[in-house]
């Protein structure tokens, strides 16, 4: 075997282009792994669909299409679909995969290579985006088969999938952050339970103005509310600039915060 160093690093490529390239490589690996274990995606789709069916079954009679203004003429399933999509986006396993790699030494193996530190954070998040986009698409197609319509059409559908998938990146990113901080599978798993308050302290059954006052305050303070309302507007109303704008603003701000904290954490990790 030749034991000669070939000087394979850098080659004039910028740090950011290396970060992007490495992120796509790591993300591609995560997607390949997901395709090899499709059963791991099953809960991501099945549980949100289960909640959709149960919630609609329980409340559809209370909120008939006709006579319920906030449904804009659609069934209650259309109102519930965004909550199911966001629940699906909260199932990302990036944090747990990261803990597994930390515990098994693979994370250190990667860190001892010239891989971009930023890519160690971004790689699986990119995969989360792709996986969530695929699952959300399937869920919406199933919803269409049951008579739910996307008022904003195909462009709105695409915007909706992008917003939900970006939120999946943010949520998975915070779980990765927890994994990097605690290096514990139990703590990371426990931390993921934050999706309960984030998802249920929202106007997920009725619009915000019909919630009780304490619940309305909680929902107003909860950033997920604005993503849910943004997605919901695309399903029920068409393009509502204010609602969509607020949704993307929440995703953008939380994304920047998550990335800043993650990059700081991974750069100081030892």
């Amino acid at each position, binding site marked *: *075997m*030749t*034991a*000669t*160093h*070939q*000087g*394979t*690093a*850098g*080659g004039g*490529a910028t740090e950011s282009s*290396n970060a992007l390239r*490495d992120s796509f*490589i790591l993300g591609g*690996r995560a997607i*390949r*792994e997901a395709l*090899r*274990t499709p059963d791991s995606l099953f809960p991501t789709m099945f549980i949100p669909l289960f909640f959709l069916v149960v919630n609609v079954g329980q409340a559809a009679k209370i909120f008939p299409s006709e006579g319920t203004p906030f449904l804009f003429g659609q069934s209650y399933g259309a109102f519930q679909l965004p909550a199911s999509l966001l629940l699906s986006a909260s199932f990302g396993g990036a944090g747990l995969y990261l803990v597994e790699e930390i515990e*098994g*030494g*693979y994370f*250190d*193996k*990667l*860190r*001892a*290579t*010239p*891989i971009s530190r930023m890519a160690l954070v971004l790689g699986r998040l990119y995969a989360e985006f792709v996986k969530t986009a695929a699952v959300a698409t399937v869920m919406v197609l199933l919803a269409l088969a049951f008579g739910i319509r996307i008022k904003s059409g195909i462009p709105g559908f695409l915007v909706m999938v992008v917003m939900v998938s970006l939120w999946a990146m943010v949520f998975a990113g915070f779980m990765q952050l927890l994994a990097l901080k605690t290096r514990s599978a139990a703590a990371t798993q426990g931390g993921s339970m934050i999706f309960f308050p984030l998802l249920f302290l929202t106007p997920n059954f009725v619009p915000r103005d019909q919630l009780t006052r304490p619940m309305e305050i909680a929902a107003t303070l909860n950033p997920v509310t604005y993503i849910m309302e943004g997605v919901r507007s695309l399903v029920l109303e068409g393009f509502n600039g204010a609602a969509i704008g607020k949704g993307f603003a929440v995703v953008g701000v939380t994304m920047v915060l998550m990335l800043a904290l993650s990059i700081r954490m991974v750069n100081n990790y*030892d």
Partner: protein
Amino acid sequence: MPLVEVSGLTRSFGDTNALAGLDFEVERGTVLGMLGPNGAGKTTAVRILTTLLRPNAGTALIDGINVATEPRRIRTRIGLTGQYAAVDERLTARENLQLIGRFFRMNKADSRERAAELLAKFRLEEAGDRVVSGFSGGMRRRLDISMSLVARPIVLFLDEPTTGLDPRSRMEMWDLIDELTADGMTTLLTTQYLDEADRLADQILVIDHGRGIATGTADELKDRVGGARVSFDVGDAAPEAVLAGIGELRSALGEPFTADGAFVVPVRPGTTAPQVMRSLMSAGIDVVDFELQRPTLDDVFLTLTGRPAEEVVADE
């Protein structure tokens, strides 16, 4: 100039000093065996040298490059295999190798070619396209080491590479490391086992409480411990007869003594245990039992520190 130069390296975790001023060098093309019990600071030293951990003080240079101030340059020049086989179990062996190649900025064709080369070299060709989760422990270890060699490092760090392996896999690993060193790979190997360091290392550094306490070749260290000893049970034979039986070898052996009813004679370099056996038999001494006792890590530690290795509290 040594390829690896470490001077006054310190690192603490809270109140625990994992490294307390470690100094050593590794010459090009040689194997340094870093020997010590759990908690001695071996892994901490390796983690600093591989840029995974920052030192509190001291300097570590690889090929003249400071690991603390230029970690990116260091990472292009090193290979690391840790205590456990660090592979992606959901990928195939070939994919694992190609992935690492891509992080060393190889293009797809080059990483494919290098992966094929390493699969052949490490006898993983047939299993190359199988998902790693079905591999045996030995196969995972071979893959792990091959992943460390993808970018042809100038120095390879093996942190307790045989920990947890069964005896057969351990021997295979030794053969593998022999092959690498025969090709001129500079290697830093940490181990808890003297026999492993003895078999693989050109130089051995014994560390304890984060400091080097002795360095030398395996023979030199054994001499400090007293080297090997032969112990033989001669039944009812008189001690005088046994001493006479050793005959001409007396001057080449240490002072005999008895322990648990057996004769024990330290063997110095240049004399072999079979010579002692032959000498006794030709003198008509009926040897009931005969045993060659080699120094252990405990012997080395007992001699160098005055306490057994087990007393060291693990802090790594």
